């Protein structure tokens, strides 16, 4: 019988610990597929964040390191500077990357550090049980914004792709989503490009993946995907925010 669908080689056989309906599994798979497609499993070194994906080091077959909260881009910088021929990526959530780790993110970007960042934006702190994230939407109810995010006191969400694309240095920044088949397929291509850029020595590539958190949003997985369509994507428009490949050809 022909095998038509199988687990990517770059994923271990360890079962994911993620909640039912959590897109982390899909995003992990997309990262692993990109690594497989590019044949870089043996050269890849991944940096896991603090957050729901903290145990990502158990799921990828490549060498892995676990970073302190928000510090993944700095850790990745150290690794890449030590081993420039290896392929170094971080996998980070919104609290990790856009709150506690904002300085590390911005400075890795402005150095055009030749690394790949997979940034998962689900507008909430999942691991700690659903607190307000830097990317939580105005009015969004969370454990620490029980009356809805009040922009007067809690400020506005941070649009990471837009913010980083205001810098001169970064090579490639794109925002994608994984809420339907079409978007998932496109996200896979973007992630692969972000890795390929690094292989070609082009520099900093960040893919912001609009994700969902059914558990902490208090929605069914299906409703959560709908919420992504109706609330998240209008606030966080998908698309390419920076691509120096294209700029060069213009």
């Amino acid at each position: 019988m022909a095998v038509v669908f199988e687990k990517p080689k770059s994923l271990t056989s360890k079962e994911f610990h993620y909640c039912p309906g959590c897109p982390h599994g899909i995003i992990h798979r997309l990262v692993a597929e990109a690594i497989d497609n590019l044949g870089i499993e043996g050269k890849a070194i991944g940096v896991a964040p603090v957050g729901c994906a903290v145990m990502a080091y158990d799921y990828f077959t490549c060498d892995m390191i676990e970073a302190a909260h928000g510090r993944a881009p700095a850790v990745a910088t150290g690794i890449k500077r030590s081993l420039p021929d290896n392929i170094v990526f971080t996998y980070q959530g919104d609290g990790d990357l856009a709150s506690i780790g904002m300085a590390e993110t911005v400075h890795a970007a402005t150095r055009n550090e030749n690394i790949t960042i997979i940034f998962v934006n689900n507008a909430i702190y999942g691991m700690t049980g659903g607190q307000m994230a830097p990317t939580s939407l105005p009015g969004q109810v969370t454990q620490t914004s029980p009356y809805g995010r009040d922009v007067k006191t809690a400020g506005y969400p941070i649009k990471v792709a837009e913010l980083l694309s205001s810098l001169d240095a970064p090579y490639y920044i794109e925002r994608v989503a994984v809420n339907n088949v079409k978007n998932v397929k496109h996200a896979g291509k973007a992630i692969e490009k972000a890795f390929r850029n690094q292989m070609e020595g082009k520099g900093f590539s960040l893919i912001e993946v609009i994700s969902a958190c059914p558990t902490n949003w208090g929605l069914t997985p299906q409703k959560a995907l709908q919420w992504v369509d109706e609330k998240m994507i209008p606030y966080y428009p998908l698309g390419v925010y920076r691509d120096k490949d294209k700029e060069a050809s213009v």
Partner: protein
Amino acid sequence: MAEKVLMKGNEAIAESAIRSGCLHYFGYPITPQTEVAAYMAKRMPKIGGVFLQAESEISAINMVYGVAATGKRVMTSSSSPGISLKQEGISYIAGSDLPAVIVNVQRGGPGLGGIQPSQSDYFQATKGGGHGDYHLIVLTPSSVQEMADLTSLAFDLADKYRMPAMLLADGTMGQMMEPVVLPEPKTCTVDKPWALTGTECKREHNIVNSLYLSPEVLERTNIERFERYKEVEKNETRWEEYMMEDAEYCIVAFGIAARVAKNAIKVLREKGIKTGLIRPITVWPFPSEPIRKAADKVKGFISVELSMGQMIEDVKLAEECKKPVSLCSRSGGMIPDVERIVKSVEEMANGEAK
């Protein structure tokens, strides 16, 4: 013998690190250690090394964590407030059993404090500093020569015991120039099968990590680490004894305080007060044994420090209440002078010490 050159302590650290095979340095400007970064910035590009001025101390130590995980020799340096910022990363490095060298050229604190020399990060360096059960090997240079020698030693010990080592200096040591014979170039000889290098699809993946969600496993990991610390205590405790053969009073001091103490000892001996010095070269592990032995011979101990009195606690623990221990110290960037040390010892000799 190799040529003696004249160097600032901070420069001696940097050059010694390079000669020890450290080709990765991450720093952030802060007085009084900036010369380390400046020296690295100048040299590293010429020898194929990496100098990176990080966006913060926090980033710098996490870059160190990244390089250490790849098995290469790596260093960062800072001064007291910056070292506080690095504590998170140091705890992760210790918890992941990685070798790395951290230099603290201390200045007065707390808070922004001042920029003059201090030893008031003693507790921070020897009692943990960051969160969790761990230790650093802490080396305390007392001359520019030792700035070079102990930096070199720090790399070897860090690799040997898979743990971070700290060079605990002070502003005086960093800023002063003395003749120094630089160590011969060397590289790491320790095998590092745990290092992240890419699996090349030929081995199981390596994971560098300090997360253990099972308390049983975390406890076991900590116990195993402390077994290794015992080895460090057994093999690597270092100190110097100066005029202790016939001493009736024992000064305990390290770094710049030990230098001033040696001058004071000369004055005291001219006055007929037989005083000696035990100078810890490692403050973790602390040289408790020679102090305990000295307690059987001397009439008392004087802990000379550039702090409100931190090391004195270890001196008291070491001598087990056998003899009185008094404190002679200045704080905030001040340095106890010869006169003050002489007076402290005289007070003890006259039974006036509190």
